[in-house]
């Protein structure tokens, strides 16, 4: 059984390493969507293929808010509710944040800010890092 424990540890390390490599390749293709701006105030629709997100979840998120700008943040390590819970609590402490939601399936965090605020990706990244996850990129949408 000691061997099984050892093998499990090695397996955890190997799978983790393999996934890390796999993700680093996939991110190369997603840099073009980082920190861009897009005004969707006319129809409140979003191009799913462009942002790789769950449009149903996103449309549910924006249906009762307006006059805001939304940071759609790509996050690594957000594999369960517990991981995401801290992110939600952290951003709700920010008085400029109107609403927060998480798309676990696509690894996205939606943060709606009032329009008067300049969204700072470094600040968002720092908050997510302090929560134990890794922010990779961000897209800003305006409603």
């Amino acid at each position: 059984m000691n061997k099984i424990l050892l093998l499990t540890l090695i397996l955890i390390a190997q799978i983790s390493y393999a996934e890390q490599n796999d993700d680093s390749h996939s991110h190369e293709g997603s840099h073009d969507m980082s920190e861009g701006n897009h005004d969707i105030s006319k129809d409140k629709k979003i191009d799913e293929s462009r942002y790789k997100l769950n449009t149903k979840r996103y449309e549910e998120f924006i249906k009762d808010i307006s006059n805001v700008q939304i940071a759609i943040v790509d996050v690594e390590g957000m594999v369960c509710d517990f991981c995401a819970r801290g992110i939600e609590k952290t951003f709700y402490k920010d008085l400029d944040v109107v609403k927060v939601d998480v798309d676990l399936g696509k690894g996205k965090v939606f943060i709606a800010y009032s329009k008067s605020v300049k969204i700072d990706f470094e600040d968002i990244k720092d908050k997510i890092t302090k929560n134990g996850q890794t922010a990779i990129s961000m897209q800003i949408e305006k409603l």
Partner: protein
Amino acid sequence: MGIIKNRNVLVLYILLYILSASVNARPISWPGGNTYMYKSDATKTSKNYHYSPSYKYSIGVGFVNDKYFKEEYINFRGTYLLDRRNTKKSQRNFYITGALSGKSSDNFFYGVHGDWETRRYFTSVSYINKYTKQKNYIEKELQVGVAPYLGEYGDIHTWLMIKAKRNTIDDNWETYPFIKLFTGDYMVEIGNKNSHWDLHLMARF
């Protein structure tokens, strides 16, 4: 809730909600977060409170009822995240943990814990050295699990798990299935082996 196939599972869900707490092997929360854990098995029952100043470590206090050695004591416990690797689809963690009894300096433990999980699969391993006045021993534990469905944020998440554990007192491996549920800030693990219930609850706030 569409996965509920029979009345027994429904009863289990209701029972777990009545208990209204949760389970996880990690006593580290988000920065500034608090964790309450209740754990009970054939050898001991413990109630622990932890505070996490950062996502890297937590400190806490616990009350332990050691059924095997028939003693009760308070533990002061710490856990530190040695290493974490985040990917888009997974997270892997290695922790060190330790505790010192308030009753006697002869009573303490230290060890390591590792886990790797995706939204679909979970595996963890732990190795704990325990020291008591009566006997020193080692506890090893291995868990693997699969999520039968992938819930969205805020849903009830379910894990079907298998746990194998061994301590050097009894010197034999016990392997048994259990179920792990969590939603929001609460988590529950419940399993049954040799007519003993293994229960682990956790709440974060």
